């Protein structure tokens, strides 16, 4: 199985990254210029005008002629766009450490974000990769002396990190591109670079395509489904949905537990590669899965399609945040700002296969038709309260082990 390479062979990254860096610098100048208070040049100009006026006035007064002072109602002189250095941090000789997933996520950052960020700041970037849970627990263990500067994880994990004081609130002035990001992607302590949908993936050739979460219990699919593992990030959300479809609710998950226990999954998965061989052999026909991973399965030669269930798919977004206590907050904010730049976000999502969070980011031609824009799917996905999910996860995991996993054994 292989994956299609994007980016590096399609265009000159050097020129592209420089263009992005210059665009970011210009946008930051506009932010500085339109912000409160005069620039240094204006202050000096004012001093010069004031001193000249004072001298002229004195001279004229000595000559018996009243001098003139600047008309306060006159329009301010136009500001130069090639003004003094902006607040883009100087990363020369410095290295920013970023915690993120490996695989497609890492590759997308390497191909889309790193070139622009490096061109902008001159900083190097080091990655710390691993699963979301592992990296969260590592950050927790390092509380007070973190080894990473930017923490990228699921919204729930980043929420927990904030609750534990591991990440800080974003300084919005340092991330001007936040203004272009959809509200669904923004938290006080972080911002998402894209939106994913967790719905149903079905292999080609199904006599009756799936369209609902209830289809997992169809008689023709008995023993032919894969299910997310008990510890999967979306397990509590799936449990909530199934509970609601069977007379329960988020506060009453017993119906959902009982219904899930009726299934007989062929395999439990945490990643598409866990069930891809079974999909290829025909042992698995349907599975709950992320839409971006289904696109990746297509690249790998598997004929699998993604379906938004009629009851809505589960929204999942990966969040970027600045680690508390890092000595490189300036670079961390600049990194996030760079990642959210419209062109960078578009390029990133063309590699990652997710929906961009920047509303001005285009869906590039190479992924058109395969990756949706946010405006096309926001009404097809359901967002869950991350605080509630984080609070319920430990107990629900224990209950799923007790009722569901024991039935699936």
């Amino acid at each position, binding site marked *: 199985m292989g994956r299609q390479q994007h980016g590096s062979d399609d265009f000159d990254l050097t020129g592209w990254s420089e263009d992005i860096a210059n665009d970011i610098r210009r946008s930051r100048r506009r932010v500085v210029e339109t912000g409160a208070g005069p620039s240094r040049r204006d202050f000096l100009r004012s001093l010069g005008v004031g001193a000249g006026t004072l001298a002229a006035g004195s001279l004229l007064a000595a000559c018996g002629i009243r001098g003139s002072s600047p008309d306060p109602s006159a329009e301010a002189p136009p500001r130069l766009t090639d003004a003094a250095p902006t607040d883009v941090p100087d990363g020369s000789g410095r290295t920013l450490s970023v915690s993120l997933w490996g695989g497609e996520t890492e590759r997308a950052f390497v191909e889309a974000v790193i070139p622009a960020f490096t061109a902008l700041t001159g900083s190097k970037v080091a990655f710390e990769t691993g*699963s*979301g*849970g*592992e990296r969260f*627990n590592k950050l*927790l263990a390092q509380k007070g002396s973190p080894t990473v500067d930017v923490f990228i994880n699921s919204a729930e994990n980043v929420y*927990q990190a904030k*609750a*534990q004081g591991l990440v800080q609130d974003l300084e919005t002035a340092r991330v001007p591109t936040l203004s272009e990001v959809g509200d669904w992607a923004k938290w006080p302590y972080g911002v998402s670079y894209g939106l994913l949908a967790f719905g149903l993936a079905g292999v080609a050739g199904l006599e009756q395509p799936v369209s609902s979460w209830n289809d997992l219990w169809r008689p023709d699919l008995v023993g032919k489904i894969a299910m997310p*593992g*008990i*510890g999967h990030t979306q397990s509590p959300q799936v449990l909530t949905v199934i509970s609601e479809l069977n007379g329960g609710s988020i506060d009453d998950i017993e119906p959902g537990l009982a219904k899930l226990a009726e299934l007989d999954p*062929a*395999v*439990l998965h945490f990643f598409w590669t866990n069930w891809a*061989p*079974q999909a290829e*052999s025909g*042992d698995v026909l349907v599975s709950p899965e992320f839409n971006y991973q289904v696109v990746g399965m297509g690249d790998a030669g598997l004929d699998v399609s993604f379906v938004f269930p009629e009851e809505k798919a589960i929204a999942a977004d990966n969040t970027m945040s600045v680690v508390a206590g890092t000595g490189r907050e300036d670079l961390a904010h600049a990194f996030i700002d760079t990642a959210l730049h419209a062109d960078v976000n578009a390029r990133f999502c063309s590699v990652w296969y997710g929906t961009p969070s920047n509303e001005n980011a285009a869906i590039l031609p190479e992924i058109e038709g395969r990756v949706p824009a946010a405006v096309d799917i926001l009404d097809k996905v359901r967002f869950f309260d991350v605080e509630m999910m*984080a*609070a319920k*996860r*430990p*107990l629900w*995991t*224990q209950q799923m*082990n*007790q009722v569901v*996993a*024991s039935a*699936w*054994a």
Partner: protein
Amino acid sequence: MGVAAPDSDFPRPRRMGLRRRGGRVGITIGASGFGAFPMMVGLGAAVVVPIVILARQSVAVNPLNPTDSAIGLSNYAVLFTAPIYREAIIRTGRVSLVSSAVSVAFGFLIVLALTMYRRREPRSSLHVFLLVAPLLAGPIVTVMGWVGLFSSGQLGYRAVNLARGMLGLEIGRVVETEVGMTIGLIHFLIPLVVLTLYPIIRGISPELLEASLVLGEPPLRTIGRVVIPLCRPGLMAASVITLAMAASAFVNARFLGGERNLVLTTLVNQQMNTFDPTGAAATSILLVVLGSSLVTGYGLLAARTEG
């Protein structure tokens, strides 16, 4: 005419304790004058300190879920009262004992055959290398291989289900079962047994075996009454090593056992990933206690049977 007694091949027991020098009794410390004390202190700290930290965490409030009422020994109580976790504890012991016993038995037979073969064919190092190749490849590679073999319709799947059919058991999935997990573990442990037993069995003098056969003992009784007693220390060491490794195996349990067959290692991983670090700490302590108990119990049993 008698059989020549073996010399350096026959292990002699060492005398431990005080040595008498010229009428005075002294304790030999070691050439450095410090002995192994500093190393023991360092090793002890490296082992004891993490366990103490985990133990403290296991009885603390869950910092990720302060509303959780579990505190004190309640994390341990859950492990022993919840049927799924009790089953995980029992499964850990069962899989460890079975895989250790089978790998030692098979490993012993393999080494015996290899030793006899090597005496006729000296250039058989390649066979030893191939035998220990799973160790060199690492657990990930071997486990992924088994996942492929155990997939529906593949060789491993058909072989296991053939055996199930012959035993009157229900045929079906092999991945994410205890059987698949045990087979993968045995495959990984056999090389360890081979590496442990090979030098010991090679050291057994062939004249001893010939003498036994000449005196009328059948081959199987020769193995049982001559070979096994001579390599008993090696068998004990191999058993302890495989038992400890089986109890602490994660990759094998994660991919071949899955969440439908939780053992203590995969339970720790699941708890860590679901915002239950205090539960994970309690499970880790239990794993240490269980592994230590298995090893200690086996050692006592072996010493008793030897005595």
